[in-house]
């Protein structure tokens, strides 16, 4: 199943406070904090793109791993906010990194794309070699489409994360994983070309509140573990209230769920890898201990991955 060798991240410089967002949608920052836990997020500069942010996060990841881009056997790039219908950002990111003619595949999977990339990489690494997973999102371009919708505008930010999966060595060995999709909810969280993001928040919250704990329990059961034995959980940073409810459903303290949503908002598929990178740099994988990654998003797509520190 491979190893997690390194993470990387990139956040644009511009900080957009909840006070500023509140002024756009005629609400107040206290309400935004209460319903989401978000105090600020980052917005990309005009010249920044999904590709440029993805390259920056990938370079950060490669620098942490000490490996050269030429050693990468496959690049997987997740984005739900790519600027173009085709080609997606994967091939350009790979080219700018110097990955030669290694295949580069796009995963247009918003929110859960970073996790889907990690899981697919863990299952392909034995045949494809080192796999660089990148998740990059420029959600500011999406949330600022008119008419602004309060429930959407307050949530999202820009950024990119990256993860290097290695077939032979790393900081953590990937032990189990599970991925699921259910297209019967496709219209409940959707982005049509040129239109504002459409979100049925109640449906998203209702399904996510059930499906995330369920898929975490699924991978834990495969490894004969219980949630209380897990010292750290890394989850898609969708909403602090959702993170807290997932913790509650699993019967573990919310403090076991790493969270940086207060500073970056919801960066869609990039959020898991950005959070994982910051957690990894702050504390690292606990030796011999299991860590759980999970995500849920548009599709609906959801899943979880269990890794054990080496």
């Amino acid at each position, binding site marked *: 199943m491979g190893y997690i060798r390194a993470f990387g991240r990139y956040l644009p410089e511009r900080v957009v406070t909840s006070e500023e967002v509140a002024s756009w949608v005629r609400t107040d920052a206290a309400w935004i904090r209460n*319903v989401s836990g978000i105090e600020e997020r980052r917005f990309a500069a005009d010249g920044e793109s999904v590709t440029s942010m993805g390259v920056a996060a990938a370079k950060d990841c490669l620098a942490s791993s000490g490996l050269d881009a030429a050693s990468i056997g496959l690049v997987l790039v997740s984005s739900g906010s790519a600027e173009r219908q085709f080609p997606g950002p994967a091939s350009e990111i790979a080219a700018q990194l110097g990955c030669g003619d290694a295949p580069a595949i796009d995963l247009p999977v918003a929110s859960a794309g970073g996790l889907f990339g990690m899981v697919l990489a863990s299952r392909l690494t034995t045949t494809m070699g080192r796999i660089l997973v990148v998740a990059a999102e420029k959600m500011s371009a999406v949330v600022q489409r008119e008419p602004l919708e309060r429930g959407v505008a307050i949530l999202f930010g820009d950024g990119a994360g990256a993860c290097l999966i290695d077939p032979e060595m790393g900081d953590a060995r990937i032990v189990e994983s599970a991925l699921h999709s259910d297209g*019967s909810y496709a219209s409940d969280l959707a982005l049509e070309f040129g239109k504002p993001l459409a979100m*049925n*928040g*109640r*449906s998203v*919250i*209702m*399904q996510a*509140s*059930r*499906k995330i704990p369920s898929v975490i329990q699924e991978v834990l059961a495969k490894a004969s573990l219980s949630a209380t034995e897990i010292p750290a959980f890394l989850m898609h940073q969708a909403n602090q*209230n*959702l993170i807290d*409810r997932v913790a509650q459903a699993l019967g573990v303290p919310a403090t076991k769920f790493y969270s940086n949503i207060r500073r970056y908002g919801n960066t869609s598929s990039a959020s898991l890898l950005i959070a994982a990178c910051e957690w990894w740099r702050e504390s690292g994988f606990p030796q011999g201990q299991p860590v759980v990654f999970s995500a849920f998003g548009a599709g609906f797509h959801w899943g979880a991955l269990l890794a054990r520190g080496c």
Partner: protein
Amino acid sequence: MDRRLQLVNLIRQVAKKDITPAADESLFDSGLLDSFALPDLVSLIEQKFAIKIPDSDLNPRKFDSVERIEEYLDSRG
């Protein structure tokens, strides 16, 4: 206890307020409950009425008012 009163009590428990919604009043559009209260309400309904509500039944409209919750419970037999 009357089933409607049981449902109102569950809604009060989730809302943490002594409210009495009209049977056809939207619990969410009216602001009585927020979106994150919905999964809590569903969990309490499962416990109180000893049923398992499958994910495929988790349509917010089915739980939008006391009447709609009653209709859903009736459909479960």
